[in-house]
């Protein structure tokens, strides 16, 4: 949990336009901070107290830069200080990106007493989460009416119960370079009142919607992930699920070439001569004539009934006349 949180926060750390950030409690106490100016905390705290539970996304213009406040959940508020020249819209978009990363992470409430802004607080948070996990026996039940449909997406154990023709996410092979297209149920998935949308929302929250919006038949999974500032795996996982629902299509050609590509046979190296055979003297020429890029050195030796070492010698001696070793799988 703490590593996920750290990962999300490190997005801010690596952003040139972020001057500092702080994860604060709902009472406005800084819990974990990174170069956030201390003198801004009172102002931020004032704003937090002013709005209390009504706090949505809020910006404060300060002489140090633009502060964006946003509630992460009922206990936590993320506060980010951006460079003054950054456009308001961009600052908000950046903050939302990080919030999206935080969405999947269950943050426990802050401890009653802690040292403000201490780096070690992340570990404190982690231990609280571990404790909570060991005492809480049940996961919070998600209120989904179509629980039967949902069940088919539970991991492997449930897969057996689904009808044979229903494809599971595991049936799809999506690589970072795969370009997903819009599928037959694409528009249904994006209409807010459809069951498909609700199902997606219950599983992926707004992340699903955002990824699908970027599916236009030209962007690869990596490009979508890059645009959203998200790890490839997360996007691919969603796309696999979406492919199972016909929301997106993985283009036929790519799929075919991928299965061909990702399964490989035996790796061999075959010498190929591309040059003027007349330059090669003596018995070597016979050997080099066999170097047509289809036979390995062992096969050449066998075909000519000579020792393998002889073939290697001939190739090494004449490499300068244009012999390449072509690696391939057969």
């Amino acid at each position: 949990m703490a590593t996920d949180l750290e990962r999300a926060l490190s997005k801010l750390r690596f952003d040139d336009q972020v001057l500092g950030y702080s994860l604060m409690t709902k009472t406005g106490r800084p819990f974990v901070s990174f170069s956030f100016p201390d003198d801004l905390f009172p102002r931020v705290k004032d704003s937090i107290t002013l709005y209390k539970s009504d706090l949505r996304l809020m910006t404060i213009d300060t002489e140090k830069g633009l502060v964006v406040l946003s509630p992460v959940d009922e206990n936590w508020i993320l506060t980010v200080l951006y460079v003054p020249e950054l456009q308001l819209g961009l600052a908000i978009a950046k903050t939302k990106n990080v919030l999206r990363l935080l969405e999947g992470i269950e943050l426990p409430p802050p401890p009653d007493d802690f040292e403000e802004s201490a780096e070690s607080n992340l570990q404190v948070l982690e231990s609280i989460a571990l404790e909570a996990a060991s005492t809480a026996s049940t996961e919070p039940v998600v209120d989904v009416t179509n629980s039967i449909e949902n069940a088919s997406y539970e991991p492997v154990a449930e897969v057996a119960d689904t009808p044979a023709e229903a494809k599971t996410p595991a049936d799809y092979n999506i690589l970072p370079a795969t370009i997903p297209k819009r599928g037959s149920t694409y528009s249904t998935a994006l209409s807010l009142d459809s069951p498909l949308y609700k199902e997606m929302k219950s599983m992926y929250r707004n992340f699903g919607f955002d990824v699908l919006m970027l599916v236009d038949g030209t962007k690869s999974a990596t490009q979508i992930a890059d645009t959203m500032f998200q790890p490839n795996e997360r996007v691919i996982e969603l796309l696999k699920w979406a492919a199972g629902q016909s929301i997106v299509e993985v283009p036929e050609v790519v799929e075919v070439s991928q299965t061909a590509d990702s399964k490989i046979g035996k790796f061999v190296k075959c010498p190929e001569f591309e040059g003027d055979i007349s330059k090669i003297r003596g018995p070597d020429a016979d050997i080099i004539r066999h170097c047509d890029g289809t036979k390995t050195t062992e096969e050449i030796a066998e075909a000519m009934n000579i020792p393998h070492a002889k073939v290697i010698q001939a190739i090494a001696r004449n490499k300068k006349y244009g012999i390449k070793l072509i690696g391939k799988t057969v």
Partner: protein
Amino acid sequence: MAKIENPLLLSLYAQWVDGILAETDNIEDANERLRELGREMGSHIYLNTEIAEKTKDTVMTREDVSKLVETIYKVLFNKKPTDIDMKTARGSVRVTDDECVWCQDVTLEGMRGFGYCEGFSGIVEAILRFKGVEAEVFQESCRATGAGSCTWNIRL
């Protein structure tokens, strides 16, 4: 015949690649095995070279990451990468090398998706980890499989 830099490294690495390809039947697995090999090499490199002292203890920004990559290049290959791109993608740093050391004189056919130089991804990943940065590094294109240059993506 092009002059080969670092023939010892090249021969050792070629042997490893052959071995890994013989043991795996899937491109993705082979890439991951090479990265894992690189990660292990990374800790040797970190201990055996001046990278640790020539770079900042904590890497905080993309500029720091870029400088670190340049140092790795200098120490390992005594050269500079062709380009380090920090601007195009917000979450990544892309390293491009038109004359990559790892796949010199290597030609692969029909092996699209295979990163011959994934070993270097693992090395960069391991060294970044020593500097406190959890990043994922993978090779995006490789000259050995026909691309114009080798590129690595450092996902921060």
